[in-house]
Every structure is written in structure tokens, then in C-alpha cells.
């Protein structure tokens, strides 16, 4: 075996300990705090994804139950459709985003929503909007010369109860 300096041994043990602690922290955050990264949803054909019968033929917000929504969003150069969504505060919205042309990004500022949008794939994440206000959603993957103009808004409106 090889000789390792005593202090360096301590350092090495410490490094291993720190790295294992990180793994456990991340694991805890995703299991108990439920902060999820996107996974497998479904595959689509980007050439036909806006044809009748596809949920992206008429993208937009759908109410599943009071306070529970699905938002189907279509990304294409250089717009999101729809580019504005209104929900009451306290709503839980699940986003389903796909692209009909090149790759795009989808990030809603001040939330945990951050995904790549890849033609042929569906990106899905869920967020709760408790604070009323306007949230900006931006495309954060280069998608051509108009990339920096590709954005939208999510308007979270105060509920009746909160307004009183």
C-alpha cells in the first residue's frame, strides 16, 4: 500500500463525508420536500402536435378542480402560446410544454419551474402560486435571433377571501 500523510488522510475522510452528506441532502429534498426534476411524460411528433386532437391544438389553461389547473403551453419561435395565464392565488398548476420547432427553455421566475423544451418531448412540472402578483416566464435556451423577445406572464390574482 502507499503512504499517505496524516493530515491528508484526515482531509480525504472529510471530503468523503461532505460528499455523502450532499447526496443525502439532495435525496431528502427530492423525496420529502418533493422538489422534482422533469422526467418521462410522453412523446409527440413535433410536426403534427398542433393538429386537431392534440392538447396543443388549443393550448391554454384547463381547470381540473377548484384551485387545480393544467396549462398546455406551446413553444415556437419566438412565442409561448398562450403568453398570459390568469389563476387565483393558491392555485396549483401543472405545466405541459412542448415545442413545434427548435429547442426552447421554460422558466418561471421566483418558482421552481425550470425545464428544457425539446421537440418530440413533453416537459411537465407543477407549481403552487400562493402569492398574488405577476410572474414572468422566459425562454432560456437560445432559439434564434428573436430569442430574447420570447416570454410570457402568469398573473396570480388575489382571491375573494384575501381581497376582503
Amino acid at each position, binding site marked *: 500500500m502507499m503512504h499517505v500523510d496524516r493530515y491528508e488522510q484526515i482531509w480525504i475522510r472529510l471530503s468523503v463525508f461532505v*460528499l455523502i452528506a450532499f447526496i443525502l441532502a439532495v435525496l431528502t429534498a427530492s423525496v420529502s420536500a418533493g422538489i422534482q426534476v422533469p422526467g418521462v411524460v410522453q412523446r409527440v411528433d413535433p410536426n403534427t402536435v398542433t393538429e386537431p386532437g392534440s392538447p396543443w391544438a388549443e393550448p391554454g389553461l384547463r381547470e381540473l378542480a377548484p384551485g387545480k389547473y393544467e396549462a398546455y403551453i406551446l413553444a415556437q419561435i419566438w412565442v409561448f402560446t398562450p403568453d398570459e395565464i390568469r389563476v387565483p392565488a393558491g392555485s396549483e398548476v401543472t405545466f405541459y410544454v412542448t415545442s413545434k420547432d427548435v*429547442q426552447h427553455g421554460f422558466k418561471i421566475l421566483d418558482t421552481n419551474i425550470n425545464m428544457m423544451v425539446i421537440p418530440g418531448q413533453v416537459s411537465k412540472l407543477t407549481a403552487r402560486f400562493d402569492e398574488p402578483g405577476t410572474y414572468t416566464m422566459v425562454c432560456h435556451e437560445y432559439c434564434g435571433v428573436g430569442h*430574447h423577445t420570447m416570454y410570457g406572464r402568469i398573473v396570480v390574482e388575489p382571491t375573494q377571501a384575501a381581497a376582503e
Partner: protein
Amino acid sequence: MAVQSMAQTPDEAVRDVHAAEARFALENTLTRWLIGIAMVALSIGILLGIFQGFEHAGLDLYRFIRPAIKDYYQGLSLHGVLNALVWTTFFIVGFFTLAITRSLDRPLSHPWLNVVGFVLMVTGLVLTAYPLWWNLATVLYTFYPPMQADWTFYVGLTLIVVGSWFAGYGFFATLIRWRKENPGKRTPFIALTANITMAMWQLATLGVAAEMLTQLIPWSLGLIEGVDPLLARTYFWFTGHPLVYFWLLPAYISWYAMVPKQAGGKLFSENLGRLVFWLFLLLSTPVGFHHQYTDPGIPTGWKFLHAILTYGVAFPSFITAFTVCASLELGGRARGGKGWFGWIRRLPWNDPSYTAQNLAMILFAFGGISGITNASYNVNLAIHNTTWVPGHFHLTVGAAVTLTFFGIAYWMVPKLSGRQLFGRRTALVQAWTWFFGMLLFANAFHLLGLRFGVPRRTMLGAAPYRDPAWTPFLMESLVGVILLTISATLFFYVILMTVLAGKKLTKPVEMPVAQALDQDKIPAWLDSWKPWVWGAIFLIILAYGPILYQFISEMQPTSPGFRVW
């Protein structure tokens, strides 16, 4: 290296070393060309970086270089390709050509391999530059399909990589020959670790090779109708993460084996150093999904597996931090430094080559920490594709690697040109301004990304959602950019003046090679390739095999090409 005996006169010593250099004439020519091309590429790349920095701060300077550069994104494509791909690859191959042959004290065994490699790399560069310049490849340096560049762009990049493979074959052949000539001897540290880096590169580039050959090249030539963008991304990041180790390991070689010598110290633990490089060979590649945490279509279990392996590949960098610091401390103490921190002041801070590299190490500590954040699975959601990311990698490749290469150039250019470094003080100012410039620039970008979620790869000055709250940070980054502009100017000035007007060397420059403190025998497993190479292949198959198999068998090549610029 020439050994000087006591009885020699200085003249004889010079003649001896010149004679020794004559053996390396071809190697020196290759290195001169490679690092020369690297520096020209970097000068253009940096110029465009400066334009980007000003644009973000609200000063659109692009109208002054139209029609040469059409817009922000063409400039950004050039910035990424020239800096991250051309400057690095050409410099590394050039540096290794010199370092491996000096470390083994023998010329290349099959120089034609390296000459072929060089010709391929230059041809590739010309093919890549043509569409970039004519705005036919404004796809950024990651060229994600289905954005489609001119075919010359893909073929050119492929040739650069294949050229670097040939350079690698030349290095392997030389090492094998040396081992035959020196049975039972252990491979010198620099030659071994440089070859490990090239071996890692061979494995790592299989991903991008598959992407180019099975998808992008036939598709851009019209031979196939469509590509599968997720599969292409997966191939890309198979190479994309080890790519950053391909940049970093040459800097580590200098930190382990050269800088301690320049500091008057010794390599604190050569055995651990070797172990570190083998671990990089083992772990660099099977981690690519940590660039795809936010991608749809990849099972989260696979992402998590790569997250764990990513923490594994952080481990050798932790060891490096200790060993390199301890090696420098040996130097500081040998130079009379006392006390807990007194040795730091005694380090050769008046030597620009040393100073640049020590400052590079400090910036790498910050870059490493922000890198661990990026790698942390769901924490990545906070910063993915925000300006945090360019903040991070300007500390790593833009500072740790680039500033180290500057430091290497400060001894290597004199060695290759036979002239003294022009303007030692200017070179010192260069190192410090790069340090503070990158620090401010990166700090501002990190904060903009983390606090405000500002997107990267975006012409922010023209973005309708631009927020006045960003301004103070953009101003901070502007101060950084101005310092970097000064620093870059000084660097090219020093190098040009050295080559054109430097005083002739009276004493030849030798490659600095640090002695190891632990002279005890190296365990056999630290000098044998087989277990590590097979281990690396095994881990790649484990971490990529089943999922890639699934992606390929369920491939949907439905995306036609788009030209969106």
C-alpha cells in the same frame, strides 16, 4: 533534460541544452503553431466576449462591426467555439506535445501521427470558421438540433476532434516506445498524466462522434430527413461534461508537477496525484445527465445515478486542493516563510508565470463550489440556464484554465521563441487584472442568475422583460469586463512583444518539473493502465448503456432542420 555537471562553463552548458533542444525541433514547431493558432482564436473570441459584456450592460456596440458580425448571437457562437473549443484544444495539444516529450526526454516516436493530427485540426478549424463567419452556423457552440448549421460546421468540428485523436495516438505510441526502452522504470508523472488525459478524451468524444456521424452530418447534407433532438443532446452531453475535464486536467498537471517547482517546493504526494488522474479517467464520462436534469424524456432515476457519480468525480478535485496547497507550502517554507500563513507571502509573487497560476487556483476554488451547486440534482432548477452558469464557467474554463494557460505561456513562449519574456511587470498586472475582472464579472452573473433568474444566452439589452433591479449587478459585471479588456490587451501585448522584440535568451528555459516528496515505490496499480481503462469502460456502460440502448431503439427522427437566424 540536459544535466549540467559542475565542471562545465556556462557556454558549454548553453551549447548542451541547445543540442538537446535540436532533438525536439519538430515537436517545437508543432507546439509553436498550435499555441499560436490557439492565441489568435482566443483574441477574436475575447473581443466578442467584451461586446457581449457591454451589450448586457446596455451598450450595443455591434453596429460598429456590422456587417462583419451580423448580431449578438453570431458573435456568441464565435465566442463559444473559439474560446471553449479552439483555444483550449489547440493549446492543450500543443502544450502536451512539448510536455510529454520533455517529460520522457525523447522525441515523438511516430511524429507523422502528430503531423497528420495537426493537419486535420487546422483543416477542421478552417471548415468551422467559414460558416461561422458567413453567419451560416449561428447555433452556439453546443449546436443543439434541430437548429441546423451548414454541413461544413459539423464536418469542421469533427475534424478538429479527429485531429486531436491522432495527436493522442502519437502520444500513446511515444509512451509505449519509452516503456519498451525503459523496462521496469515508472512512467514520469507528467507523461503519464498527460496521456491519461488524452485517453479520457478518446473515450469521452465517442458521444459527439456518434452525434455527428449518425445524425448531424448526414442530416445537414440532406441524406436523412430528420433527427431525434433528445438523443442528439444525450450524445452531446456524453462528451460535454468530460470536455470540461479535458480543459481542466492540463491545468492540474501544471499545478501538480510544474508550479511547485516554480515555487521552490516539491510535489507533496505523487502517489495521490497519480490516483487523482486515474480517478478522472474512471469518472469523467458517466456523469453527463447532470447537464440534463431539466430535460424531459429522461427517467429521473438515471438523472439521480449521474448525480451520485458526479459527487464521485468531485472527490479527486478535493484531494487536488490539499496536495497542491501542501506542495506550495513546501515552497513557501523552503523560501524562508514561517508561521501559519507567513509562507504565503514568501511565494514567488514577482514571477508572472507563478502568480497567474496561483490566482487561477484561487478562482477555481470559487468555481468548484458553484459547480457543486449546479450538479446538485434538484438544486439545479434554481439556476439552470440562468446567468449563474456563465458565471460559473468563466471562473473555471475562463479563469482557472485560461489563466493557468497564460501562466504556462509565460515560460513556454520564451522557451519556444528563444527570447526573454517582455515586460515582467506588465505580465504581473495582466494576471491580477484577469483575477479581479473575472471575480467581479462572475460574482455579478452568479447573483443575477440566482436572485432574478436572468436567462443566459440572451441579448439582455434588448429583452422586453429586462428589469431595472438588475442594473447594479450589470454595472458590477461591466467593471469586470473593463478589467478583462485591459488584461486581455496586456496579455497579447506581452506575448507579441516577446516574440517580436524580446531580448535573446542567455540561459535556456527548461520546463519546470517538480520533484516528488514521497520517493517511496509506486504501487503497481498506480502505474498500470488496464484496470483503470476497463473500469472506465465498465462505468460508462453501466451509466449510459441501457438508457442509450433504449433511446436508440425508440428513436424518433422527426425533426427537420431549422434556420432561425
